[in-house]
């Protein structure tokens, strides 16, 4: 088997909080605290979880938008978390990003043409001026926007169209992996469907790998090959789509899935309603991080932190309950 396109090993990102006089650092936000996963070429891996679970931080760490605390990010066999700026530049071309808010992630002063041309020039992808023009117009066709729109500025477009511009900009660099950080979350239902379909088509066409960060489980199920569920900076379960949605093992995954309201009136469902709120990542609970809200908590959970262990062919779960022999 060929090596995975992206490998993340024991990634940690702790943000210091300046507290006290003279900004002495006394505490950390343990945003991501030991996360490992792989993404194969052409694969979609979804990171799901609730706000503050660290899913966006993982995405940003892969893009190297900040330096990580510890761990490794390996792209195509080469470490990029500590790569020198000159090598990093080429690596950046291969990993692109689409952000959630198409209103704040496009420069309002630039014409669409310049927004799309910038990465092409930046990475020296166009052989000539004509080639640049061809590439830019092709990108518009690819994301199904009219070519005439090239001379307009972002404010002249609707949310869905702007998100297409964001996708075109990501594609301009000819990447192998696109990090989609809540890329469709801000869009209206009908427009969301357009963009989801577009992303799926592009993945087929260009063999793109996607890291799809989302809290919308129905969209994730529709889009993804594999799912990693995060809770308070840790992955609690990773599995192929089928296993996650048909046979989730971790109590948090089960609760998360059961909490999604179904668009079917009178549907028989028994949601597992978790009590309380997500604890603060500044001072995460000892033992299993989920133990304060878990309906099946027992003594061991409060003291010993469970590690991810194989629960099936490709299913990994971090839960003491799953390790019990009766299962």
């Amino acid at each position, binding site marked *: 088997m060929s090596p995975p396109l992206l490998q993340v090993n024991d990634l940690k990102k702790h943000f210091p909080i300046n507290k006290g006089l003279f900004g002495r650092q006394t505490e950390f936000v343990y945003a991501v605290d030991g996360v490992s996963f792989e993404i194969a070429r052409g694969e979609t891996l979804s990171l799901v979880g*609730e*706000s503050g679970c660290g899913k966006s931080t993982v995405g940003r760490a892969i893009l190297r938008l900040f330096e990580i605390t510890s761990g490794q990010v390996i792209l195509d066999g080469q470490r990029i978390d500590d790569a020198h700026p000159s090598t990093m530049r080429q690596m950046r071309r291969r990993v692109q990003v689409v952000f959630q808010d198409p209103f704040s992630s496009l420069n309002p002063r630039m014409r669409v043409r310049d927004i799309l041309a910038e990465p092409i020039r930046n990475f020296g992808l166009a052989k000539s001026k004509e080639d640049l023009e061809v590439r830019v117009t092709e990108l518009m066709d690819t994301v199904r926007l009219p070519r005439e729109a090239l001379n307009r500025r972002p404010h002249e477009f*609707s*949310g*869905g*169209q702007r998100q297409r511009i964001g996708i075109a900009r990501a594609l301009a660099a000819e990447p192998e992996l696109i990090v989609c950080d809540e890329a469709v979350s801000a869009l*209206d*239902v*009908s*427009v*969301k*469907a*357009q963009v*989801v*379909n577009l992303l*799926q088509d592009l993945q087929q066409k260009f063999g793109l790998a996607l890291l799809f960060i989302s*809290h919308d*489980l*129905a*969209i994730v*199920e*529709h889009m993804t090959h594999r799912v990693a569920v995060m809770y308070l900076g840790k992955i609690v379960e990773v599995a192929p*789509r*089928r296993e996650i*949605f*048909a046979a989730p093992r971790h109590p948090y995954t089960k*609760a*998360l*899935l*059961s*909490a*999604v*309201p*179904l*668009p*079917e*009136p*009178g*549907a028989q469902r028994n*949601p597992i*309603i*978790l009590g309380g*709120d*997500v604890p603060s990542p500044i001072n995460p609970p000892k033992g299993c991080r989920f133990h304060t809200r878990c309906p099946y908590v027992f003594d061991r959970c409060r003291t010993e932190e469970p590690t991810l262990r194989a629960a099936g062919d490709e299913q990994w779960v971090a839960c003491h309950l799953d390790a019990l022999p009766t299962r």
Partner: protein
Amino acid sequence: MALLEVENLQTHFRTPGGINRAVDGVSFHVNEGETLAIVGESGCGKSVTSMSLMRLVPEPPGRIAGRIRFAGKDLLKLSDREMRAIRGNDISMIFQEPMTSLNPVLTVGRQIRETLMIHQGLDKQAAETHAIEMLTLVGIPEPKRRVREYPHQLSGGMRQRVMIAIALACNPKLLIADEPTTALDVTIQAQILKLMLDLKRRVGAAIILITHDLGVVAEIAERVMVMYAGRKVEEAPVAELFRSPRHPYTQGLLGAVPRLGSSLAGTATRLAEIPGQVPDLRKPITGCVFAGRCALATDLCRQYAPGLEEKGPRHIAACHYAAKGAVAA
């Protein structure tokens, strides 16, 4: 008799680019104790409708016309003073963002007390006691301590519970909930939806639920009204609407939502797209508002706006081609 009757509501805004017909001739009613959901995408006028009911639309640039009859009174004919006596008392509202709709410099207790002291004439002591009861009712642990806390000390879900406590403090007859769970995580959303259902049973208020989330609609609404481009395009009891949507827009909306579990049932297919975009409401629209995006549209649709017609039991839709009785699509 209906608790709220809205007739031909028109809320227009004067803008530099022309008059924006945000809500253009919408009629509906809400019965006592009933939950009506208003569904639609951004810009369809669902929030403007609710703001108009509360008369919270700034005039000018806004202008509200039509009739809003609530418990026998026409709200549009009341003085500002009379209207203030209704807001927060007979009709109250929950907004999407509990952080921006609570006052950050006042304690939670004071914000609940305020409405009780103004509308119910309670003294500070009695209001405090009632505030603690309300926090208990909405499931906030340690209410005696929490009444003295500020909004920033509470989590998003807790803040939304406080909003609900304020809204219900005066036993309103009608509660307008504008995207009450949109800003919340799913596990917290599940808590709040359960709370709303429980409270509805206990308090018996009618609810107008404004949302774009069809899952939430299916969960708590009894009747649904679908809005598009400032008009009502369809209305039906919730089960009927999901089972046999008649308007092409409603059908498109339902087809565009992936279902949880669809990959297992093997029904995961391409999502249905509704091509194109919402029309510009500053330009007058002749014909059907949806004609520009509708696969079934003909010259008839582009020339004549369809009226709301009965398509089934308590089921109306504004479409020239939506089939009567039988299931369309």
